[in-house]
């Protein structure tokens, strides 16, 4: 019999999930505040005590592994050449690796922008630009400027391969912490995610968790192995695709509304139809988007910004509230939990807006072009119309009464024919908040992780 302990050092909570491999089941879960500001181990010990209390005794673990988004998560800057191409490709690679992309820069960068990289306390820079054999001048210029301005934070070069030698020289000359990698966009509209993503993961584990005071935990556990959003992405992929004989759920969307961000994951191919012409940068099967301006607490002001004055007045009248004031309250007390029905009602509304807007930005678009042979369709982004399940995770969804009304906001409630939103999905909830843990477990025992998810991620 083997017990595994899976830990998620989140931005607010340290969540533990104990699993028994023989029973193929969760033993217990427990959580406590994350204490990375003082000593990350304190919160872990508290959570562990709670776990043992719940179980009723101490137990031993054969494996203890963790993911982390504590201490601000993994903050990245994505630099590319053209916005729709290498900039977007670089951004997607960062997101797929579980990072938050705090800065997105294009073309020749300037000194103010480099200064922003410093001010934003960026952890890793992903520098792209140029298809292989294409433009090399711009990315070399950008690398040199970063060098001249004394940037010492880790930089991954994943641009035009023809520029690699020059970039290596620049990295050496300015003694930068540089890493060379395959191009994120080797050909126009073709993406190459894996190499750069693996490099990001490696630097995160080798350097970033150390710098953030997370590494201290490794005296007590086996290892921190992933950024949390990356663990969730891995879990979602497993749940969708299945493993060996154990079937997956097929095409799914996962929505995670947090205090600071709203994350959307879709697991499906770009389109199933034969009558569409697909445009733009290649879409990954497992796609993650993050909205840094949509969240329940830190980023609640972003929700207000996304509304027009007219919409705000309408909401205030309709719901008999002062939505600006409510948002202000939450922003100033990010740890506050709803105390009464009124608070719950406002939180529900905020979560609904997050869900609606995040899908608006994640989902693909379609437009009709007429020919005598009938209509032809021009599509950009992913077609989610046939998605079978929309899964909610994260405290804001798990702890609310009306989960369905939040998740419904990902569908085409406004009947906008150009947005390829899920049409008629079944709504599931990650009731035990285990997706990150199962992403970790996937690294050790994918079959078990899949079975546990299928058991505990349940219909509303």
């Amino acid at each position: 019999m083997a017990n595994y302990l899976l830990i998620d050092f989140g931005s607010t909570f340290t969540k533990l999930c104990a699993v028994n491999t023989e029973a193929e089941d969760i033993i217990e879960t427990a959580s406590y505040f994350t204490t990375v500001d003082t000593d990350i181990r304190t919160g872990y010990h508290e959570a562990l005590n709670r776990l043992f209390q719940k179980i009723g005794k101490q137990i031993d673990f054969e494996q203890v592994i963790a993911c982390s988004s504590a201490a601000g998560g993994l903050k990245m800057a994505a630099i590319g050449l053209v916005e729709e191409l290498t900039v977007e490709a670089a951004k997607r690679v960062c997101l797929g690796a579980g990072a938050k992309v705090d800065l997105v820069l294009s073309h020749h960068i300037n000194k103010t922008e480099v200064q922003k990289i410093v001010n934003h306390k960026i952890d890793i820079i992903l520098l792209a630009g140029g298809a292989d054999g294409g433009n090399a001048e711009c990315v070399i210029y950008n690398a040199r400027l970063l060098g001249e301005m004394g940037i010492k934070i880790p930089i991954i070069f994943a641009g035009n391969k023809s520029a690699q030698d020059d970039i290596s020289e620049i990295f050496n000359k300015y003694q930068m912490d540089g890493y060379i990698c395959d191009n994120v966009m080797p050909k126009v509209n073709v993406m190459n995610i894996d190499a750069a993503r693996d490099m990001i993961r490696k630097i995160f584990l080798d350097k970033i968790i150390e710098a953030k005071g997370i590494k201290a935990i490794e005296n007590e556990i086996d290892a921190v192995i992933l950024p949390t959003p990356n663990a969730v992405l891995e879990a979602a992929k497993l749940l969708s695709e299945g493993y060996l004989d154990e079937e997956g759920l097929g095409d799914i969307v996962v929505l995670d509304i947090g205090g600071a961000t709203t994350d959307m994951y879709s697991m499906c191919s770009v389109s199933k139809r034969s009558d569409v012409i697909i445009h733009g940068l290649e879409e990954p099967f497992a796609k993650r988007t993050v909205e840094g301006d949509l969240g329940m607490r830190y980023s609640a002001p972003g929700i207000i910004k996304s509304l027009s004055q007219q919409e705000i007045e309408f909401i205030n009248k309709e719901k008999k509230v002062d939505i600006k004031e409510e948002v202000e309250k939450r922003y100033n007390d990010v740890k506050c939990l709803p105390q009464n029905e009124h608070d719950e009602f406002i939180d529900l509304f905020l979560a609904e807006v997050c869900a609606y807007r995040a899908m608006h930005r994640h989902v693909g678009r379609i437009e009709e072009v007429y020919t005598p042979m009938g209509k032809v369709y021009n599509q950009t982004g992913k077609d989610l119309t046939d998605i079978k399940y929309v899964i909610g995770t994260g405290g804001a969804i798990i702890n609310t009464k009306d989960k369905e009304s939040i998740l419904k906001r990902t569908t085409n409630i406004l009947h906008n024919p150009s947005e390829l939103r899920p049409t008629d999905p079944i709504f599931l909830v990650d009731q035990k908040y285990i997706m990150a843990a199962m992403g970790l477990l996937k690294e050790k025992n994918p079959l078990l992780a899949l079975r546990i998810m299928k058991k505990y991620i349940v219909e509303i």
Partner: protein
Amino acid sequence: MKTIVIGVIGADVHAVGNKIIEFTLTNAGYHVVNIGVLSSQEDFINAAIETDADLILVSSLYGHGEIDCRGMREKCIEAGIADICLYVGGNIVVGKQDFSEVQRTFLDMGFDRVYPPGTPIDNALQDIREDLGE
């Protein structure tokens, strides 16, 4: 190796000629970046920037070439590729208009070469060699 971006502009879905152009130019020794049908001006320009292209070769078959191509040179200038070669061909306007006039219009719009309907791509190879210096 010189790089040429090709594609069919606007809401135009005529796909056959585009494939032939890709085949012919590749055989002639060029690095061809084919962005396909239903491509906007921005799609051509973005691809040209990332690939450091020498020539953008625009096809328009359905007759709305003038509307679709208007302003393209200006956008190239804005995007920092002011000097890139621009060709256009196919059936660029509706019906049988006087071609010298049509040609004038497109040259004024900043295209370097403008081809009458029915010009096979092979006939343009000589011009490409001249303009790209290879």
